[in-house]
């Protein structure tokens, strides 16, 4: 059974797939943007594992986090990456961003594993590391080269972007102008509500497809990421200053008043 149905590549996160009307479009490059602690790596791994489960090998390309650390973190979710590597279904590759900046860097790193495993999915963690080595205009060119290489090789890709966000502030995906280079943008956001940190996901763009426009809450559970519902009773979430919707405020005041009358 394939996890690619009707030209859609499923993520392994059921309700996220619903938000995407079935999954990402096959062969597309997806920008997964979020600040630290939003679960970007977990979603990336879940996406690859979904492929592996359905016969599509995948590559996790990391610049900073050592594979050993990734094996350990994945193990906490019950995912045995080493075993999948032994079975030639997954490969974790660790390199430096400047290697990919060399003219045949991508080919030198990826040609062999893509061919050997017939890989169909790739996660790059993260594009933000190119920032250390190049100017914004060069970064755009680098991202473009990566995206085109993945498309040529028939890889559906998730490109992770470490976006800056301070709690209670608004959010910018990327000041480097790379958003337009990707086919789809999934934004992850930390939201403070009633002194509790919660997580929200929204599909900001999806070329050639309808998608859910709502910001939905998700949780990082012991078995992976799970989208749990929408923030029905709040407004201003994207701006970073959520407030209860007027109807909710009214209901609360009404309830208080009713209680007061009963005394």
């Amino acid at each position: 059974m394939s996890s690619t149905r009707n030209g859609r590549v499923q993520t392994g996160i059921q309700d996220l797939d619903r938000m995407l009307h079935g999954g990402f479009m096959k062969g597309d490059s997806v920008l997964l943007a979020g600040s630290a602690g939003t679960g970007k790596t977990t979603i990336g791994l879940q996406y690859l594992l979904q492929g592996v489960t359905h016969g599509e090998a995948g590559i996790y390309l990391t610049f900073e986090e050592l594979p050993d650390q990734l094996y350990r973190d994945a193990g906490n979710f019950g995912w045995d990456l080493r075993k999948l590597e032994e079975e030639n279904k997954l490969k974790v590759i660790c390199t430096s961003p400047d290697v990919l900046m060399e003219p045949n860097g991508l080919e030198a790193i990826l040609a062999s594993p893509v061919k050997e495993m017939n890989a169909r999915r790739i996660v790059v963690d993260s594009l933000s590391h190119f920032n250390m080595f190049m100017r914004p205009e060069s970064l755009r060119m680098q991202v473009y080269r990566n995206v085109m290489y993945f498309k040529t090789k028939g890889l559906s890709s998730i490109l992770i972007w470490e976006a800056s966000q301070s709690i209670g502030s608004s959010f910018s995906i990327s000041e480097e102008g790379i958003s337009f280079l990707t086919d789809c943008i999934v934004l992850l956001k930390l939201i403070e509500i009633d002194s509790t940190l919660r997580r929200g996901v929204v599909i900001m763009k999806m070329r050639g497809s309808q998608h859910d426009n709502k910001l939905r809450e998700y949780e990082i559970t012991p078995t992976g990421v799970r989208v749990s519902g929408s923030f029905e009773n709040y407004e201003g979430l994207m701006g970073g200053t959520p407030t209860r919707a007027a109807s909710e405020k009214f209901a609360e005041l009404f309830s208080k008043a009713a209680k007061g009358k009963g005394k």
Partner: protein
Amino acid sequence: MVPSLEGKELLERLLSSESKGELLMLFHKNPGIIDSIEGVARRIGKGKDQIESDVKDFIDLGLFNTVTAGKMVLISFSKEKDKEIQDTVTRYIKGGPK
């Protein structure tokens, strides 16, 4: 390549410097590293010059594979050669010095 070394010589060569020990640990834990010598050096908190000769020795032993990317030489770990070396060293240790 030096494929036919005796266990004792192999063991001495593998552990002839602190950097070699650190490189072995790094690649055993992280066999998926494919990086420039400079990049590998960064991952063990050293400079390129400090590990260059040790890396060259591991390339000669066949423990590291190389591939070129532009001006860079990238190194990766040969699991097959590592197993072969480990078997030779294990046989030597079990059998004692000859």
